[in-house]
């Protein structure tokens, strides 16, 4: 990363007459779009830039230098599992034998691709204790929606049409209630106890024959294992509902505990979290969805299966909930995850959870004398501080996050979960070394000292990044959403 701000836009580099492409000579020049009826043709001008190849390459290279990635440094972003993204994955996923396949080509000519789907489905089933997986959902939230559609379909097929309520803890990721709303379900919130766990007593009165199911993240967004999970699943099943597992936080359980064994019926997981595929500045991800035995037929279409002759084929089950994607999801992301599954194998998956948990607890214990730890005890992959212990400095969580940028660290997730005012949610992942954690801990202590002695340095941070703090209010009130608004 380069701390000098680049800041140009491609439109500002455009010069009439330059080209950045080369194409073969048109072999069919007797045909032209000018032969189309005039009113079907585009009349407006365009802002598309005219730039030569090197100008384009330098522009995006310079732009990338103002970006911080996992390859730049420590990225302790809570609930995002920013682990190392292996490079072999990228190379394998880009092989032309995979990238040149058209989605409609016959299955007989894509057996290698379909085998990857099948193998990944099988391996995810073993890792989670569920029966069958679809890899079609494009992202975690898309997986949640698909999972909720499966739950709704299950009730609809049984003619149980009044189950429209979905119970969601107040600590849940925002996508949970949002996905429920897209799925046409009514959100019922259940409160957390002082110890950060779901309040089983508060849950009981919410259960009825109108409940479709309950969504849970375990460990929850405070990084705490929901120890009452056997009782919770029992109660929800008893009332006829299904249990949904939000797999955003699956990483710490690898090697130790499986959602299927906890009693969950449906789950999603994020290949771009637990299975090492890169986040790509916001995507593409993949949110495979798994179901327990008995729910397989409801999975979205198409679904990859293997016949008795060992051939892979696409199945369109009549009981399927329908299609949720054009085809089979983000194939390339699945290829990357497959490379990771092969590389980690039996021996290393079992250590992934424990090492991630060790890293999180280590940071927590080393900092809890200066940062406020609202809930004591073992955490799993992440934990939440409620700002500095010493509140008299008026240095906020936002200030701490911004000051961390100055020291070459990405900030933790801030102001989430909403249970605490100054939430600072830290997730280190298992790919970070003790040395990295020690330097992060030392920096967090330095910031705490700065907050006490020269709070202004922290309150006006960052100082050494490509840009200073942004005016978020201005961005909304005087919106510039395309370049045209700068030239108008």
């Amino acid at each position, binding site marked *: 990363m380069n701390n000098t701000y680049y800041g140009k836009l491609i439109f500002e580099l455009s010069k009439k007459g330059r080209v950045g492409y080369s194409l073969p000579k048109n072999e069919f020049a007797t045909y032209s779009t000018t032969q189309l009826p005039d009113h079907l043709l585009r009349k407006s001008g365009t802002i598309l830039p005219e730039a030569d190849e090197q100008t384009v390459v330098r522009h995006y290279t310079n732009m990338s230098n103002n970006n911080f990635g996992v390859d730049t440094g420590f990225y302790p972003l809570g609930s995002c599992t920013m682990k190392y993204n292996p490079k072999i994955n990228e190379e394998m996923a880009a092989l032309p034998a995979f990238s040149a396949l058209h989605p409609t080509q016959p299955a007989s000519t894509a057996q290698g691709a379909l085998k990857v789907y099948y193998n990944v489905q099988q391996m995810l089933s073993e890792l989670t204790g569920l029966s069958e997986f679809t890899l079609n959902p494009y992202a975690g939230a898309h997986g949640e929606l698909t999972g909720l559609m499966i739950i709704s379909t299950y009730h609809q097929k049984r003619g149980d049409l009044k189950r429209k309520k979905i119970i969601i803890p107040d600590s849940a990721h925002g996508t949970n209630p949002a996905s429920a709303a897209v799925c046409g379900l009514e959100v019922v919130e259940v409160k957390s106890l002082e110890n950060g766990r779901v309040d089983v007593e508060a849950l009981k009165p919410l259960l009825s024959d109108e409940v479709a199911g309950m969504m849970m993240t375990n460990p929850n967004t405070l990084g705490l294992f929901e120890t009452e999970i056997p009782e919770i699943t029992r109660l929800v099943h008893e009332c006829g509902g299904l249990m949904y597992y939000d797999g955003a936080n699956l990483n710490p359980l690898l090697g130790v505990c499986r959602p299927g064994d906890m009693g969950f019926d449906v789950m999603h997981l994020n290949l771009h979290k637990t299975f090492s595929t890169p986040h790509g500045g916001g995507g593409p991800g993949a949110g495979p969805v798994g179901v327990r035995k008995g729910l397989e037929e409801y999975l979205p279409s198409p679904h990859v299966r293997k016949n008795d002759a060992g051939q892979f084929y696409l199945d369109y089950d009549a009981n399927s909930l329908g299609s949720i994607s054009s085809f089979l999801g983000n194939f390339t992301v699945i290829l990357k995850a497959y490379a990771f599954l092969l590389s980690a194998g039996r021996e290393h998956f079992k250590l992934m959870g424990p090492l991630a948990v060790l890293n999180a607890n280590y940071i927590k214990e080393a900092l809890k004398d200066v940062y406020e730890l609202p809930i004591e005890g073992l955490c799993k992959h992440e934990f939440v501080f409620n700002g500095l212990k010493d509140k008299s400095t008026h240095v906020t969580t936002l200030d701490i996050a911004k000051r961390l940028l100055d020291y070459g660290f990405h900030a933790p997730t801030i*102001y989430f979960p909403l249970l605490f005012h100054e939430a600072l949610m830290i997730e280190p992942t298992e790919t970070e070394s003790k040395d990295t954690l020690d330097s992060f801990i030392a920096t967090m202590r330095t910031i705490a000292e700065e907050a006490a002695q020269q709070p202004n340095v922290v309150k006006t941070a960052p100082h050494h990044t490509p840009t200073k703090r942004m005016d*978020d*209010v201005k*961005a*909304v*009130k005087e919106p510039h959403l395309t370049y045209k608004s700068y030239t108008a």
Partner: protein
Amino acid sequence: MSKVVEGLYYTESHEYVKVEGNIGYVGITDYAQSQLGNVVYVDMPEVDDEVTAGEEFGAVESVKAASDLISPVSGTVIEINEALEDAPELVNEDAYANWIMKVELSDPSELENLLDAKAYEAICQ
């Protein structure tokens, strides 16, 4: 300390209604605007919309938060505060002067269910 005005009716969700005859001026309280921070957008109903006490009629938005507006009263919207379309920050400047909608009350007895200044002040402590 947030300002609470005597003579208005308040809700626990931090809306107020100022009543003149059978007309109510509905807005958010000074406490609500201070909690939200810089208001950047007010989503208002349309004139002639029916609103119901206890139900949503719009939303106020700051940069990092958004809050639904719950109507303290039932009735018909007869005017909205158009000034807020271009200058939502007026809500921050004076929440009580800058009401959001003007409602013709259909059931003035609903006012009895609302909080008075003293009771509202207590919940803002």
